């Protein structure tokens, strides 16, 4: 017999975060690094950013932490995000702590 059931996920909140649109082309782009505060993350991120810059003919122009009292378990300060959004086309960071 057919039954109907509710989906368990519920709606997204009105202000739920959305992924930024994909940049049309990275060639010659400015790259930023956002340190997520985990041990060795900065070393890895800078190395990856430099490798990417070499491949696309771009430049690493910003390396920054998340802001005052920022660490792996906290979100980035709005000021840092605002600065990065003006200075770079692409940011490399770590998504977990």
């Amino acid at each position, binding site marked *: *017999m*057919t*039954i*109907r*059931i*509710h*989906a*368990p*996920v*519920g*709606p*997204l*909140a*009105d*202000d*739920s*975060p959305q992924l930024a649109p994909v940049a049309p082309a990275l060639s010659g782009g400015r790259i930023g690094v956002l340190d997520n*505060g985990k*041990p060795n993350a900065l070393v890895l991120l800078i190395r990856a950013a430099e490798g990417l810059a070499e491949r696309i003919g771009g430049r690493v122009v910003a390396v920054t932490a998340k802001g005052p009292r920022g*660490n*792996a*378990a*906290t*979100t980035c300060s709005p000021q840092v995000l605002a600065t990065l959004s003006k200075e770079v086309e692409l940011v490399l960071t770590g*998504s*977990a*702590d």
Partner: protein
Amino acid sequence: MTDPDLLELADESPEALYALLEERGWGDGLPVVAPTPERVDAALAGAHADEVIAVLPPRGGAATRRAIAVNAVLAGCPPELTPVLVTAVRALGHQRLNLRGVNATTHPVAPLVIVHGDAVDDLGFNSGLGAFGPGNRANATLGRAVRLVLLHVAGARPGPGDASTQGQPSKYAYCTAESRSEWPPYHHSVGVEAPSAVTVHCGENPHNFHDMESGDIERILDKAASAMATFGVNNACISGGEWFIGLCPEHAATAHAAGWERGDVADYLFERARRPAGEFRRQFELLSWAGWMRDAPDDEMLPMTQEAANIRVFVTGGAGKHSCVIPSWGMTRSVTLPLVP
């Protein structure tokens, strides 16, 4: 069918439901109860279904009363537990709990739900033998429903939404209830003056300690201090983290008979669970410490949390002399809310 929230399942068998969940990446891997509109309506009990109780990261899902009820049904919760689940979800949404971090961390943290007060007996929670499980429907299904809300509404699936390196068994279900003791209930100690309440603490599995022999509370608590003073827990490098100490009723009675209150237990553990500052420094390059701890010389004995108030004592379990300490993930604070029927 026009309601996008409703799915049609051609076969009502448990196997068909199981297959649907697997296909969609839903569920916790265990069989579920079908969330039919009738069952969901019973769980809602006439409440406003679209009211948003919390917005849960990382997905940014709106935990509406309906979404909470759907997951309650999936978990097997009887309808009378819905207010407890709603209160627990409300706690998950508090900024101080930092659910975004709880789900993003590689640590195995899981939200522990502790039910306090009249609701324990009224709703059939087990605060006695085996309080952490298994075998009691209220404890098991309430804990499981919290996890299902996290998986579905918060999007905390291992990998994209939950980065825990190994996970831990309490990520299936993690709920206990407070036993009656000679002390006032825990929630009164944190300023929640209600007949019943719910606490959510994001931590590790319980770490057992036992003392079968002594009627000496200091000897008993020295074993708790020993279980706490380890470098393997996040509390060792994050001094703002809390500890939950789950005393069994017999250990709590020993403390009470000696004239100790909850705060005395916390004060004692704060003084006894210590390691030399130099040892901490040898173990960690990154120490998120209070300022006064950073300035300590290497030979000074430092506590496993920066203040005694971070050591929170509750009573749970039945006969016997096993208690537990529950370390924190660290960057999170427990939340205790009154239970509103």
